[in-house]
């Protein structure tokens, strides 16, 4: 019963003192209160596991105090001490939620036994509660994962279907442009207007194509590859792909990747996509002259890869939403709102997780934690992303 928090309430000071002393000798040092009122004010300051409560006290009676305790601190267990001839009080008390009662004069071993039982009950219930909470969390996670999986399938289907009409629009516009370039069309009135509109159509198609590609990139099934990869090299590659954009804004990209153990076993293409997404976002958010740090840490069997910028930061109300598909604060031509959605999808698929910290006006840091070894027991079959998702579901 180590660490038990016990409160002893009795108006008879001598009796209370003796019991307290003897309990202390047995390893339980109780707090003390001399009345129902004092008992409640102690509880307000210090939560208790068990209260040993005299029933017959001047002022607030023990039964009254019990009602208050059970109402305000339902987890606290109460053992009543009744006078010898008043077992009725004990029965009343149990109806009101007391754990048990003892008639005075009491035997110490008896009391300790009851305290122990009460304490065990509390611990059992705490455990049960924890388990229920854990199960609920798991269930929520499963729902989220399943939703992500079906969303992925849906998105891929939609993207495929949209690509066909997109191809038709694209070829039609391209053909019209060809015709307009012919000599026979040299003289048609308002030719520039047609040219301008056709260019807009083509640009629109490009934009829609970007969206479908990103969606399919998230849901793609069959080119997940697992390999040993050097994260420093991966970062070099990703940085190279965004370096011009960064240079245009005079942003410096700093690497802190040169540490031992910077190789992991994972999917290089998808991880490169993740880094590109994070770096692009960081560049968009950072004003000229700012800098971006990409940093690697090894923590046990995990690696933590973070991309940190000195940009505008993310307002609190957006922090919850940035991973939603199509959530974007950028103009329609610039952002699809799919970057972080896809990024999180990939990271979770690879058995990792992504976290974000941000201070408005100071900068943002995205941190990805990944297992050093992504184990795929199903072998080649495990390359199918639904399999990996299933695994995640099973792992909870």
């Amino acid at each position, binding site marked *: 019963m180590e660490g038990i928090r016990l409160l002893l309430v009795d108006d008879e000071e001598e009796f209370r003192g003796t019991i307290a002393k003897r309990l202390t000798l047995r390893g339980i040092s109780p707090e003390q209160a001399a009345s129902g009122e004092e008992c409640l004010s102690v509880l307000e300051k210090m939560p208790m596991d068990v209260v040993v409560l005299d029933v017959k006290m001047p002022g607030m009676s023990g039964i009254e105090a019990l009602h208050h305790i059970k109402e305000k601190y339902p987890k606290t267990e109460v053992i009543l001490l009744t006078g010898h001839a008043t077992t009725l009080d004990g029965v009343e008390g149990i109806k009101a939620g007391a754990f048990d009662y003892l008639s005075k004069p009491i035997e110490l071993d008896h009391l300790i036994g009851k305290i122990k039982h009460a304490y065990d009950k509390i611990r059992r219930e705490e455990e049960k509660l924890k388990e229920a909470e854990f199960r609920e969390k798991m269930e929520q996670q499963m729902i989220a994962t399943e939703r992500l999986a079906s969303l992925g399938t849906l998105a*891929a289907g939609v*993207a*495929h279907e949209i*690509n*066909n009409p*997109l*191809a*038709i629009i*694209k*070829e*039609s516009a*391209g*053909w019209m442009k*060809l*015709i307009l370039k012919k000599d026979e069309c040299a003289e048609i009135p308002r030719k520039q207007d047609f040219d301008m509109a056709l260019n807009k159509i083509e640009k629109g*198609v490009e934009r829609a*194509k970007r969206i*479908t*590609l990103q969606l*399919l*990139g998230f*849901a*793609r*099934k*069959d*080119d997940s590859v697992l390999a040993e990869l050097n994260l420093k090299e991966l970062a070099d590659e990703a940085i190279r792909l965004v370096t011009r954009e960064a240079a245009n804004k005079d942003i410096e990209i700093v690497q802190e990747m040169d540490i031992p153990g910077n190789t992991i076993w994972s999917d290089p293409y998808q991880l490169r996509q993740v880094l590109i997404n994070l770096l692009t976002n960081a560049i968009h958010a950072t004003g000229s002259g700012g800098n971006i740090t990409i940093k690697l840490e090894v923590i046990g069997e995990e690696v933590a890869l973070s991309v940190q910028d000195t940009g505008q930061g993310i307002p609190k109300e957006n922090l919850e939403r940035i991973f939603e598909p199509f959530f974007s604060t950028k103009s329609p031509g610039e952002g699809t709102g799919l970057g972080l959605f896809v990024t999180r999808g990939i990271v979770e698929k690879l058995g990792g997780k992504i976290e974000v910290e941000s201070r408005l006006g100071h900068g943002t840091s995205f941190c990805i934690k990944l297992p050093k070894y992504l184990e795929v027991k199903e072998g080649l079959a495990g390359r199918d992303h639904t399999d990996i998702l299933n695994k995640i579901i099973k792992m909870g």
Partner: protein
Amino acid sequence: MIKIPTRVLLVDDEKDFVEMLSLRLEEVGERVTPAHSGQECLEILEKDNIDVVVLDIKMPGMDGIETLREIKRRFPIVEVIMLTGHGTTETAVEGMKLGAFDYLMKPADFDDLAVKMEGARKRKDEQEERIRKAEATFLLRKSGNI
């Protein structure tokens, strides 16, 4: 310089796509025959002279891969460029193994298509040239022997 048109067979179940891409290709001087299924594609190859087949992978009925296999079995000299969806690289790789010249992701870039068609056409011409030479040597040898 007059461009020698490439004889293209364009196969896709999307009729509007076939129609518009045909018009566009014809506009830049190619000669296009449209087809809307794998079956139709093979029938046309039976009777017409085709340099390059542009073949959609996803079609109802006989799909692109099956069609490709049939083309390579019956008309090995004809070059095939596949049109695939994104995320189906594996299918594309399978197609390459079966002897396709190259593949493009839909919606494809017209200039990419032009470049790949040019390459396919060139490879076919070279193949034909080689066969012609081989046949000639063969005939020569044969007549020499007699």
